[in-house]
């Protein structure tokens, strides 16, 4: 069951990722990115990251992608015009070379990692909001405060950049 869910959502993520790169219209790419993020949220849940799965859906798929879609609509961004000039040799050879490269990467990752036990849903239960918050506000308190300063800088920067005069 764990493997079945992994294959379904990993396949969906890869499909949506390919669609993101292949589509010419930004709205189609944005919807594909939302698909990738939703599938990855399921995989986080499978790995025991309850809080991070919820944050993925709320922050990434909710907030950031709404901002993207908002900007696409605001700028009335259309599809890209004429495509890049790609030779036919590169187009067909590229698929095989890409497959070979991915196979090599997979082999290296498989060979490098020690043979540990696989992921089973429900084994690791330390990713709840309780455990997460306890660690975040004790061990990682200083980085957490620094990120609040970062967010403040980003807000001020966005307001300054979006003024009329620039």
């Amino acid at each position, binding site marked *: 069951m764990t493997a079945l869910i992994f294959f379904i959502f990993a396949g969906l993520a890869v499909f949506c990722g390919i669609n993101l790169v292949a589509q010419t219209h930004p709205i189609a790419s944005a919807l594909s990115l939302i698909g*990738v993020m939703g599938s990855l949220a399921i995989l986080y849940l499978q790995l025991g990251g309850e809080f991070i799965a919820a944050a993925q859906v709320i922050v*990434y798929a909710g907030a950031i992608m709404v*901002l993207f879609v908002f900007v696409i609509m605001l700028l009335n961004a259309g599809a*890209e*015009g004429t495509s890049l000039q790609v030779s036919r040799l590169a187009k067909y050879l590229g698929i095989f070379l890409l497959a070979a490269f991915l196979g090599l990467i997979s082999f290296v990752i498989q060979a490098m990692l020690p043979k540990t036990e696989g992921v089973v849903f429900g084994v690791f239960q330390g990713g709840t909001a309780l455990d997460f918050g306890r*660690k975040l506000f004790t061990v990682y308190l200083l980085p957490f405060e620094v990120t609040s300063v*970062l*967010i403040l800088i980003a807000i001020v920067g966005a307001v300054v950049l979006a003024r009329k005069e620039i």
Partner: protein
Amino acid sequence: MPNSVPISWYLILSAILFGLGAAGFIFRRNIITVFMSIELMLNVMNVRFTAFSYSFKQVDGHIFSFFVMVVAAAEAAVGLAIILTVFKNRATLMVDEISSMKY
């Protein structure tokens, strides 16, 4: 169908999606799509953190993913403001037409 998934499959998935994001960053010419490819690359690294977090049975990896999300949110706000400004000044979104630093 095996009942467990090896950790390495998550890493391979993350590598494939990162490659797709890098390809989109290079091949796309619309600045918004380029920016979305960057978001994709940031996001799939979280899969890696979460997988190692499972492997070590520690919650620390989730906290790193959380910080990546915070940085991505800040980056999206500033980046989209930059895109708005560029569009206001140049009236184009194609990255190969925006080739000079100063107007």
